[in-house]
Each structure stands twice: as C-alpha cells, then as structure tokens.
C-alpha cells in the first residue's frame, strides 16, 4: 500500500457531445507531493479537477485516490462522505465559495460534524484550531462572508476544506482572484499548511510564477492534452515543448517586451 500513489489518473477522457475537453491524460501524485496542471482556457485543467472531485463523470479512463477507485459516481451518501474526506477542493472565486448566510465558523463546524461527529465542544475547539492555522481570528471566524475581504474568504474556504482532513487538496486557481500582496500571504499560508499537515496539493493554475512557488512537479496542458511534464524547476527553466516555451516567454518580467504572435 505504501507504494501506491495518493492520486493515480490513467487515460482520462471527457467528451461534451462532439467536443473533447480532456484527451488521454495520465498523471500521479505521490503521498506528500505537489503537482501543478498548467494551461490556458480550454486546456481542460478545470474539467480534470471536477472529475477528480466527482462533480463531473469521466467518459473513460480511471481515477484512483487513496487506494479507492472513483472513476464512477459514488453510490450512496456514505461513499460520498468518504470520498469527501480524501480529496477536497478550494475554488477560485472568493465571492462565490462561501454560503452568504453562514459564518466561517458555522461552515467549518458543519463539515466537522459531517466527517468526524464528536461533541460540539470538541468541534468548537477544532474550529478555533483550524482558524488559527489559516490565520483568522475569532471575530473574523464568526463574521458573515459579506464582512470579509477576498483574502479572508479564501482563508475560510481553505479552513473548511481542511476540516475534512483530506489527504489531497485541489487548489483550482485559488489565488488568481486575489490582490498581489494578499496572494503572497495565502501562498505562504499554503506552504505552512503543507509543512504542518502533510497534505498533498494539486494546483490548477495559469500563473507560472505561482506554480513554481508551490509545486514540485508540473504537467502542461493544451486543448485537452498533456504536452510536457516534469519537475517544475526543470520545465520552467528549460521548457522542451514549443507551447511551454511560448507560455514561458509570455510572462511579463523586468526587461521583457510583449511580442505579436501572428
């Protein structure tokens, strides 16, 4: 069992009618590892995240996480709950990822009650623990989302995802909508969380600098297919595929000038 990867995706394929969104994609994440899926719009990266979490069903191919197959929809509430305890997700839009009528503390508590039961006192203390793990104080935890900024909402979303004690956390462009200074705080936070809890990350992003900051490995996707893969550092320092080279050379940096394609 120790040899089996935490996440094992083989020949994954998704079709929407005649359009192939994901075409024969395979990759693995080892326990404690971190992988990024990089691509632009239409690359299929978000579709893959949705299939892994069960929000979409693959047309063909297999997904195994934590030793269990999840290529088909869960049968029954118990299995769905178990899967929720293995893989969790944090979405991109901080303004849509929280129930507007629920405080952060209530949202986290609900997840704890679902997965761990226990007494309400035990849950309350775990809520406080998770809050301090993500850098939220008591007042912020008990406030409604509308009183919180984008960065604070994302912290709540991260805490809520971690409440299920997942082994894999999918970050679907989770920092893309944040201000630069807040993004830095959340990136540092994600590094701390990983160091403290040993959770693995699957980062979906279009931002190569963020990818380098958080992940050890990367796969580059374009139009549903994987065009390059490898260690993040290597792929970014010496991209082999022309699309990866194009992506790399499109990133603004001091001394960079934009170039026309056609």
């Amino acid at each position, binding site marked *: 069992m120790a040899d089996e990867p935490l996440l094992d995706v083989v020949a994954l394929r998704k079709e929407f009618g005649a359009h192939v969104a994901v075409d024969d994609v395979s990759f693995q994440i080892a326990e404690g590892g971190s992988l990024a899926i990089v691509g632009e719009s239409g690359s299929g990266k978000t579709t893959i995240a949705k299939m892994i979490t069960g929000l979409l069903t693959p047309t063909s191919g297999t997904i195994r996480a934590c030793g269990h197959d999840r290529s088909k929809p869960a049968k029954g*509430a118990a299995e769905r709950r178990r899967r929720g305890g293995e893989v969790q997700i944090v979405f991109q839009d901080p303004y849509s990822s929280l*129930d507007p009528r*629920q405080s952060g503390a209530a949202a986290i508590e*609900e997840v704890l009650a679902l997965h761990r039961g226990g007494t309400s006192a035990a849950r309350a203390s775990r809520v406080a623990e998770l809050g301090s793990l993500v850098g939220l104080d008591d007042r912020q935890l008990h406030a409604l989302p509308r009183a*919180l900024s*984008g960065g604070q909402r994302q912290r709540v979303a991260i805490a*809520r995802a971690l409440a299920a004690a997942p082994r894999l956390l999918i970050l679907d462009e989770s920092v893309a909508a944040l201000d630069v200074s807040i993004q830095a705080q959340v990136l540092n936070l994600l590094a701390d969380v990983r160091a403290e809890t040993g959770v693995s990350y699957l980062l979906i992003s279009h931002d190569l600098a963020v990818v380098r900051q958080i992940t050890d490995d990367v796969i580059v996707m374009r139009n549903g297919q994987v065009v390059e893969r490898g260690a993040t550092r290597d792929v970014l320092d010496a991209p082999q595929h022309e699309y990866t080279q194009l992506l790399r050379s499109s990133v603004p940096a001091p001394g960079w000038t934009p170039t026309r394609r056609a």
Partner: protein
Amino acid sequence: MSAIELDPGVVGPVPATRKWRGVPGLRGTGVAGHLSALVLAIAGFVAVFGNMLAPHDPDLTNLSYAFVGPQPGHPLGFDSQGRDLFSRILAGARSSLLGPTAVVVLAMLVGTFLAVATAWKGGRFDRWVSAGLDVLFAFPAIVLAIIVSVIVQPSLLSATIALSIAYTPYIARVLRSAALRERARDYIAALEVQGLRAWIICVRHLGRNLVPLIVAQGAVLFGYAMVDLAAISFLGLGVRPPQADWGVMVSTGQSGVLQGYPLESLSAGVCIIAVVIAVNILGERLTERANSVSR
C-alpha cells in the same frame, strides 16, 4: 469587476449612519414599507379579534333599519338587511384575509419545492415539470376557480384550492431562476464535494438563501390572491352570503348602490384596496431589498 472596485469591508465597527434605520426585519423598506406593514398589522389584528371587537352582532338582521345611514354607535350605518355595517366589516376581515393567507402558504410550499427540485435535478425532470407548469400557467385563476367549483361545491375552500393551483406555476418559475443562480455558485459545489446529502444542501443552504425572495414574493402574491378571491366571491363561486366577507359585501351592496346607499360596497371595497395596496408596496420593497442584498 464592478465599476466601484472597493474592498467589501472590514470586520468590526464601520461608522454607522446616525439616522434610525427602521424596525428590525423591515430595514430598507423605507417609510412606505413601514406604513404598509402597519396597515397589515392592523388588518391582521382585526382578522383575529374582529368578532370580539365588533360592537354589535354582525349577523343580526332588522329590516326596519335597512339602509339607515350612520348613527351614533353605528359609524357606517346599516346594510340592506339592517345589519350593522361596521361590525360586518370587522367580522369580515377574518374570511377576507384567511383565504389569501391559505393560498399563499399552499402556493409557496408547492412552488418552492418544485423550484428547488427542478433547479437541482435539471435534465428531463426539469423539462417535464416545467412543461407541466407552463400548461397550468395558461389558465387564468378565475377560469380555474370556475372549473374547480363545477367539480366541488363552491365555497371558500374550493376557491382557495383553485387559486393555489393557479399561482403555483408563477412562484415555481420565479424561484427556479433564483435557485438556478444559487445552484451555480461554488459553495454548493464545495458542499457536494464534502459529501453532504443533496436534500440537506437544498434545504439548509440553497433554500435558506432563497428565503428573502420567498418572503417578498409571498407578500406580492397575497395582494393578487386577495383581489382574485374577492372577485370569485363576487361571482358567487367562493364565500356565499349571508357570511360577512368583504368580497361578498361588495357584491351584495350593489343593490344599495343603485338605490343611493353605497356605503356597503364602498366600505368593503376600500378595505380590500387598502390591504392590497399595503401588501403590494411591502412586497415590492422586500423584493428590492432581497435582490440588492450584499454578498
């Protein structure tokens, strides 16, 4: 990105505006909203306690007093059967308001359930149910009332059932759009990934976020129900005389109007109009507030 790209706010004390912002629950509805709520509160109070408040027996006839005008102790005078009009107005509040309330409760319950179910399941279920509701939507409320009263004896109950059936598609349609919008938000997907059961998500999360809109639509519906019920009673297919009911009184007061004694129809009519206007204003303000709630 909206035109005003400001941070949504700090947690903690933001300097509050000094002016009084209204009764809790009615904040944001303005002066008109508060006044309307007051009118409705009075009407509700009378509906509950009307019979006890009435100074005289609303059903006591005395033909020698027929059409006599306002007297001390009888502020509105008497109707064609010599019954005290003021007492009849007070007593009539109950059935006039009970009917619409029942219609609203029934239509909202069924309509909300259908809206959330179709928004959640989508696909064929949604298509079939929506098609069925569209067919029902094509029938005006009055026509449905006539059909139902042919099957069952005309009464307040038959009229109530007919109207509930007539209004359900409207509610279902309005709430379905809101439910679809809510369903598409990431927090619902996050809860699905957590493994929370579908019906729990629908009730505890989706449903709760629809409550402001449900309340607002309910208020609007009340007004329509009141007018339609009064019209149905006027036609003789709902409440029937000699029961005290504002709609009935508008109808039976017709003979008085022709003879130059309009007070029965007029007073009952004014009561209906006042309640309907109040409910419309309040409903509109609540809907505006529901739609502008910050997220």
